[in-house]
């Protein structure tokens, strides 16, 4: 597999340096340990939002740092959660006295490292709340697993909570809103092909001519099931049904529909899937009132998509619409 890199062990460092050069007005990048903060951090008078996770999911999370979204992001090695000291330093750098919300995707590594960081911060007298995102319905029974994975809802939670924090909501309020977004969102994804980790040079799995991984995660881990490729409409419906049934989404619900490209899937295909997804949603009597289509949470160069549905209430809709000014999401400013 060919990639545009220099030294494999410098991929994350150099990419962060590139981001720093590309967005001098929006973000600042810290090295040793790695983290990204808003150019104007710490931002007085607001709760600080911090997220992070393995690299390889760009623009998540670093691309969401900015006014109206995250205060800091902690990128780990590729597909490896960040370390506690990284999270601690990033959090301390953006803390403005109103406490810190850690938005954490539910993977053992992320959960443990953020947990350790929170303990370190709390022992320094900084108030920290943690919300664990776990919206992936592909992982069925959390009694017998590490629990559902955090996927697309994370992007939505970061935007919505960012809006609330910017508007001056308290730590309790922002944390409650984040939990509520997580509780109201469900996702599922599929991959047409593997991704290749630039740090190891290895493809994550091998698929036959006509096979896809259904219920894929975002770290190149195999999906729940290997099935034959089908039409975009059929596959979209196969993703939508378990999502709809799980919450469950009910006739008349107002939703945000998010179709996410996993990396190598062209926008042309994402739009075809979006068309199918909105069609299914409408057939189920849902009112699609907000939309997002694009590669916002990727797995490097994986071909595939994920779909996220969020049941909106008025607060969520208001903060979704609020201005945001980050490298990857921007409107109203």
């Amino acid at each position, binding site marked *: 597999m060919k990639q545009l890199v220099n030294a494999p062990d410098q991929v994350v460092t150099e990419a962060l340096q590139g981001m720093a050069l590309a967005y001098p007005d929006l973000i600042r990048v810290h090295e040793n*340990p790695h983290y990204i903060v808003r150019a104007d951090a710490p931002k007085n008078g607001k709760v600080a939002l911090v997220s992070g996770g393995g690299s390889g999911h760009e623009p998540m999370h670093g691309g969401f740092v900015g006014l109206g979204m995250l205060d800091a992001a902690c990128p780990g090695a590729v597909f490896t959660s960040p370390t506690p000291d990284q999270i601690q330093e990033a959090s301390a750098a953006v803390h403005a006295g109103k406490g810190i919300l850690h938005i954490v995707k539910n993977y*053992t590594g992320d959960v*443990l490292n953020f947990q*350790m960081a929170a303990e370190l911060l709390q022992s320094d007298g900084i108030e920290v709340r943690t919300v664990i995102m776990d919206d992936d319905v592909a992982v069925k029974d959390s009694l017998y697993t590490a629990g559902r994975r955090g996927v697309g809802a994370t992007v939505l939670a970061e935007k919505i909570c960012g809006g609330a924090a910017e508007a001056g909501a308290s730590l309790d309020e922002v944390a409650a809103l984040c939990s509520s977004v997580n509780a109201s969102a469900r996702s599922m994804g599929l991959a047409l092909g593997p991704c290749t980790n630039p740090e190891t040079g290895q493809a994550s799995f091998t698929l036959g001519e006509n096979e896809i991984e259904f219920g894929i995660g975002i770290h190149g881990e195999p999906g729940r099931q290997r099935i034959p490729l089908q039409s975009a409409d059929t596959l979209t419906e196969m993703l939508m049904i378990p999502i709809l049934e799980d919450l469950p989404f009910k006739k008349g619900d107002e939703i945000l529909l998010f179709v996410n490209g996993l990396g190598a899937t062209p926008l042309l295909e994402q739009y075809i899937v979006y068309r199918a997804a909105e069609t299914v949603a409408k057939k189920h009597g849902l009112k699609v009132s907000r939309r997002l289509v694009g590669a916002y949470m990727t797995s490097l160069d994986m071909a595939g998509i994920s779909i996220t549905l969020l049941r909106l209430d008025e607060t969520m809709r208001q903060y979704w619409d609020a201005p945001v000014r980050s490298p990857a999401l921007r409107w109203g400013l």
Partner: protein
Amino acid sequence: MEYSLNALNQWIVCAEHQFKTQLAELNALDAAIGDGDHGSNLARGFAKVVEKLQAEKPATPAALLKLVGMTLISSVGGASGPLYGTFFLEAAKVAGDQLQLDDAGLALCLQAGLAGIQRLGKAEPGDKTMVDALSPAVSALNHQAGLEMAAQKAREGRDATIPMIAHKGRASYLGERAIGHADPGATSASLLFDCLAKL
């Protein structure tokens, strides 16, 4: 047997060497049922550990174990960073200010380390994690079976993960598809005990 500072140092140097040379194998195991980085994670972490050991030359077993634990936590990330980090930190607590450990002392340290891993990760034997290798090995040490036997038990524990369905970590997402693959963390844990047995 007595475990001097020097012996413990040798243990860690051996582990660093193992993880470096087995990097690709551990990544491949992890690719099969996880995200393919376990070898890279441990190689990165232990390289840092050895670098720090050389620079800081800790004066007691406890200081050494603590340095190992802190360094793993701050340089590995992922699930294995906090878990192995805690293993060494908890072991360090039990080592107290002893200048060397005897067999029973080492067993108590590693027992505490394992307990730390289980407290943090909530895994039980049979969940297809590093605990499946660590638990029988520590138990062998507790029964004065010797390092060789402990390492043997760790390898058996690793092999016993092959037919398991995982209930913790990334492999748990796979359901039945995890069957037939050894757990990468159980494999790295058994390498740790192999190094112990070489002392």
